[in-house]
């Protein structure tokens, strides 16, 4: 499957605090923008794949609204950030196997105005495990990931300041991104004085909550070469395990499921971790960046914080990370905005934040702590 399929177009809406429209409209706007970007038309679409957590309209409604009455591939994946890369991977499989020729993958969510993951007042998600947690008041992602953060910090020695440097680094990237929600610098004093949300996580350890949609168009690599944009090849996609109360074997919260999955991902792409030029790492919370740097073998175990402190993860460093600002400072599209950023970087269209040598990108999904699933992509530019 390596390099047999490609992302031929990307489209998105702005990030909003209140989009004022439905998730159906958000999805339609992002998908049509992605088709425009690719130089394709609505009539070309024969596959539709999305993912959600009960917070968006299903793929069939979007298909019919687009006028795709006979979709060859139609998938609704259950999951938030854990499934963003898996959704793109499913499109690559559909195209490579000949099930479909032009697959749109999108995530549409009103995660600020309608369904706040970390918000107040909404009922708990229907995950079967939540029955054991919600009675104790444990239901919001910052609480779940605070449990993870403490385990990682206890093992690695990472401090609050180390988490703060992740947030500050990504804020500095967002300042170069006209789409980013956050537009002012973040200082260590501001970070350390921000309120605790769920100890050890503070406000600025937590991602933004936004209304938005992001879509990509996946087609065969051969066809993508003849389309409007420089293709971005899907070198590898991988899904892996995760932590859950039903796991018999994965009970160490200081490492993520990515540690086990990453060798499979790199082998599929035929590369080593050293060949990754940029990494768009799922960053619902700052510690996930440090943990994934280690678990994807981009930094030595327990040394991710030093790697960040040395400037390696910003522009001019050896591995720019979350070049758009990430979920912490650009906005929140459950991982697909990371894919969109990688596409821009690999096409050489990232403007003032362009990483000149960017040819190979790692895009990751949530590392599997809440959903028990993780996924990731390796993308390659041919500009």
């Amino acid at each position: 499957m390596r390099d047999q399929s490609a992302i031929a177009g990307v489209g998105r809406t702005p990030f909003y605090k209140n989009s004022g429209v439905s998730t159906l409209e958000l999805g339609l706007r992002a998908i049509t923008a992605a088709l425009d970007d690719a130089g394709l038309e609505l009539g070309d679409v024969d596959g539709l794949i999305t993912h959600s957590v009960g917070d968006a309209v299903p793929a069939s409604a979007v298909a019919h609204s687009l006028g795709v009455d006979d979709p060859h591939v139609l998938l609704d994946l259950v999951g938030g950030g854990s499934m963003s890369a898996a959704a793109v991977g499913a499109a690559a499989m559909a195209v490579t196997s000949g099930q479909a020729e032009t697959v749109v993958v999108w995530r549409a969510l009103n995660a600020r105005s309608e369904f706040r993951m970390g918000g107040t007042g909404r009922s708990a998600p229907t995950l079967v495990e939540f029955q054991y947690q919600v009675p104790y008041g444990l239901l919001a992602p910052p609480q779940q990931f605070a449990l993870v953060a403490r385990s990682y910090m206890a093992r690695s020695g990472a401090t609050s300041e180390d988490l703060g440097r992740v947030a500050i680094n990504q804020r500095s990237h967002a300042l170069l991104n006209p789409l980013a929600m956050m537009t002012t610098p973040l200082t260590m004093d501001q970070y350390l004085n921000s309120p605790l949300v769920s100890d050890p996580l503070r406000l600025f350890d937590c991602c933004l909550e936004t209304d938005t949609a992001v879509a990509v168009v996946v087609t065969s690599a051969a066809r993508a070469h003849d389309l409007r944009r420089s293709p971005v090849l899907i070198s590898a996609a991988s899904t892996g395990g995760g932590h859950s109360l039903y796991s018999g074997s994965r009970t160490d919260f200081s490492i993520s499921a990515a540690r086990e999955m990453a060798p499979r991902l790199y082998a599929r792409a035929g590369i080593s971790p050293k060949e990754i030029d940029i990494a768009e790492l799922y960053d619902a919370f700052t510690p996930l960046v440090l943990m994934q740097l280690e678990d994807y073998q981009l930094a030595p175990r327990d040394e991710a914080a030093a790697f960040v402190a040395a400037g390696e993860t910003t522009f001019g460093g050896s591995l720019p990370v979350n070049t758009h600002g990430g979920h912490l400072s650009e906005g929140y599209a459950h991982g697909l905005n990371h894919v969109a950023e990688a596409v821009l970087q690999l096409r050489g269209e990232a403007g003032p934040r362009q990483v000149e040598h960017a040819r190979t990108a790692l895009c990751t999904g949530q590392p599997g702590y809440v959903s028990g699933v993780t996924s990731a992509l390796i993308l390659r530019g041919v500009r």
Partner: protein
Amino acid sequence: MTGSYGDRDSASWWQALERQQLQVQQCTCGALRWAPRALCNECGSFDWEWFKTDGAGTVVTWTATHRAFIPGTVVPFVVVLVRLDAGENLLVPGGWTGDEHGSDLTVGLQVVAEFNSSDLTDRDPSTLIRWTRRNQAN
């Protein structure tokens, strides 16, 4: 009162909490498991029975929540994830009898389950686990 909280896998586990028993499942192969479900992921057997633990364990991790995600919740409050002494793979969440900021918690602290029952009819489930330092409980 006998609660009806949980699902078809877990209802009897919750009811055991009301009797102040922290149970896990034991497969015919000997493997213990929690949370409740039908199949042993060690050997593939559907045959099991309840195993009564002594409620003892060690702290894996915890968080003190400072934002009221559920309106009206008194913050801060602590949730602790405990690994039961009975098995490496048995991780059970619960409340905390100590400091509401968790300042008296450390990874590896030895704890034991206490059972906190409520007569409130609108509370579901009626009995919850509250972890407490083991030397205080024994």
